[in-house]
């Protein structure tokens, strides 16, 4: 054991004395800075665009609208029914100005206004007074009650009715959508919760239209619980498109970007591990020491894993430090359910954990590169092939999955690489909007099993080749 440990120390010294290794750390820092500047530019741009959207803007356009309609009404040639419609619209805008209703952002008041307009057009005057009263008093609860009454009329099943009432109660309780769109994330959570409830109720996944497994069912129930917790504790979700949370956008973008940088360096190091030493002949020196070859290989693999560990730790800590320095918002906490209760993981710990969840598939590619390096003894073949597979597997699998709609595609290792989303299922990845095709749905345990078997097979091949082939 101590012999392997000494070989392991040697391997680390060899790795860290190389210029390329030092360069990889610099590259990580550069990519972090790059991501930071990118996010900062977006932030600047968004702030600028919201600043120009002043609150009085709606008033101005409403007044314009009124002027325009009045101009039309002066014309005698229009028909009576048209005239009536225009007058109703005119009243709508006048009402908006009277009750200070921002027709662009206040969804529920706008909704009421439209209802009133509709009723006027139908000539149904019984409800108008009531609706106007709600508007006049800014009576949000009254609006919710109105919605509830509407629900009763729709003849829903008891379960569905209960679910919808629950959502409305939540909306009333937290005054979601009462004011402007500042708390838009709450609306989004509410909509999401409704979909989750629907999935649990019907047993059909709202995203894939497939039957839910027991596990997924539990997953949705947990997510509903977490959403309630978020509303109760005023904790915005991490969905960037909703919360304008630039910090989490930076953290996740940085992790995605840096993981690629780490993956490339790790693949290069692993690809050179045997091949470069064979081509420069230095492997002979180690093969001549009183150490069996499997010990040398084990030391190499250990040092590779150690390198991944150190680099990932550095990258994740740097990400958190950067985020703390350059964003004045607190980091998001990760919520999960343990024994039926909602538990929290702090931002720093979560980001580190997220990095490690993301790096796990990279280990598989590192072993692949090491195996190719040992078999071919040619570092360029090993590195280029591994890099190509690493970069190309996403697109390739999307095509293959869409062509082969079979059940067994879930056994393909490349369909099981997305471990981070399985380890942190309650984390709304702010840049996950792009992922259209999610491939076969598998559990974390299954994915780990597939990748584990794959890794063990590659390791056996590597050891076998290194132990038994002549070093010429």
């Amino acid at each position: 054991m101590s012999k392997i440990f000494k070989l392991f120390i040697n391997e680390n010294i060899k790795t860290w004395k190389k210029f390329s290794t030092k360069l990889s750390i610099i590259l990580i820092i550069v990519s972090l800075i790059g991501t930071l500047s990118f996010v900062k530019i977006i932030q600047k741009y968004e702030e600028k665009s919201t600043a120009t959207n002043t609150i009085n803007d709606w008033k101005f356009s409403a007044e314009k609208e009124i002027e325009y309609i009045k101009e039309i009404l002066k014309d005698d040639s229009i028909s009576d029914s048209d005239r009536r419609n225009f007058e109703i619209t005119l009243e709508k805008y006048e009402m908006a100005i009277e009750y200070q209703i921002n027709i662009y952002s206040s969804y529920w008041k706008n909704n009421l206004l439209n209802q009133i307009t509709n009723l006027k057009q139908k000539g149904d005057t019984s409800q108008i007074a009531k609706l106007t009263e709600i508007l006049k008093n800014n009576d949000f609860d009254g609006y919710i009650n109105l919605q509830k009454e509407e629900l009763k009329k729709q003849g829903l099943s008891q379960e569905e009715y209960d679910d919808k009432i629950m959502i409305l109660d939540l909306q009333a309780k937290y005054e979601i959508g009462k004011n402007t769109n500042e708390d838009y994330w709450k609306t989004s959570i509410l909509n999401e919760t409704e979909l989750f409830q629907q999935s649990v109720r019907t047993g059909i996944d709202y995203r894939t239209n497939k039957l839910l497994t027991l596990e997924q069912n539990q997953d949705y129930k947990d997510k509903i619980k977490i959403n309630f917790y978020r509303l109760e504790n005023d904790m915005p979700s991490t969905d960037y498109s909703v919360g304008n949370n630039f910090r989490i956008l930076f953290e996740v973008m940085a992790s995605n970007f840096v993981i690629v940088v780490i993956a490339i360096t790790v693949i290069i190091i692993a690809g050179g591990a045997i091949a470069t030493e064979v081509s420069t002949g230095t492997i002979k020196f180690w093969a001549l020491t009183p150490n069996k070859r499997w010990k040398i290989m084990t030391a190499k693999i250990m040092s590779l894993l150690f390198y991944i560990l150190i680099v990932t730790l550095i990258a994740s800590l740097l990400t958190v430090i950067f985020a703390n320095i350059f964003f004045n918002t607190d980091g998001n906490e990760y919520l999960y359910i343990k024994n039926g209760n909602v538990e929290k993981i702090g931002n720093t710990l979560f980001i580190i954990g997220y990095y490690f969840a993301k790096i796990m598939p990279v280990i598989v590619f590192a072993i692949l590169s090491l195996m190719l390096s040992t078999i071919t003894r040619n570092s360029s073949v090993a590195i280029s092939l591994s890099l190509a597979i690493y970069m190309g597997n996403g697109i390739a699998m999307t095509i293959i999955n869409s062509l082969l709609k079979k059940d067994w595609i879930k056994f393909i290792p490349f369909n099981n690489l997305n471990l981070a989303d399985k380890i942190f299922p309650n984390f709304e990845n702010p840049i996950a909007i792009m992922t259209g095709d999610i491939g076969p749905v598998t559990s974390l345990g299954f994915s780990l099993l597939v990748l584990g078997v794959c890794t063990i097979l590659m390791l056996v091949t590597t050891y076998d080749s290194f132990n038994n082939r002549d070093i010429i």
Partner: protein
Amino acid sequence: MPNTVLELKNVSKSFGKRKVIDNISLEVKEGEIYGFLGPNGSGKTTTIKMILRLIDLDKGTITVNGFDTKKQFEKAMECIGAIVENPDIYTYMTGRDNLKLHARIRNVNTKRIDEVLELVELKDRADEKVKKYSLGMKQRLGLAITLLHKPKVLILDEPTNGLDPAGIKKLRDILKEIAHKDNVAVFVSSHILAEMQLMCDKVAVIDNAKIVKIEEITNASEEKIEKVEIRVENKEKTVQILKEKFDIEIQKDAKILEIEISSEKIPTVVKELALRDAGIKAVIPKEHSLEEIFFDATKGGKK
């Protein structure tokens, strides 16, 4: 009687159908510099790689210090220091760093690192990157690495390749010191005859996968018959003198005067010729050389 520390018994190896090593046996003793001579492609490096188990053997056994290199690989390797082909050193590190890597594996302390650096005369430049070393310095650093753990057997594959005469002399002196002072068995392969002759105590000649001759190289101080070419102005007179005084027969019409004579007698012959005005231009020793052994054994490289 010195112990045998490296022994090859009936070792054979083929790559595909081609026999690279055919039933080789040899013994190397403590304190002996053993030359392994052969033309390019005769199987020298393959033999060395088999001793070091970089290549597996088909038949036969190899023991180092009594340990079988297959069954007791780790124990056998503890007794060996070796450079195969080139000294393969990490060029992006300093000489001392390279030594430290090996010192850790071999359980050697830092004091020994300084010792070997002194031995190979690299102490001043040990903290420079190996990139900046000359070939001779790399060779010597490689040697220092192999000597770290005080091996019983030192195996060097073509150590003089690419070295200048000064470098070769330095290497020779170091090897002689190690072998004769520290009682290390040195096994050196080469295709350079003159080099072997100056360095080795014993030479095995390998050709076409077989050992064709094993010969001890006697020291110059011992009495032996040498071949000498004598160039003179007066040829006839010389032939006459040689015949009368030393009883050496030479045909009169021979173009070159070549005699075989005990080395002790050479001064007397020269003195006699000089006194009798034979007009000596040059006396050239034609050594009973390795070259001859080599060409005899390998039949001039043609077979």
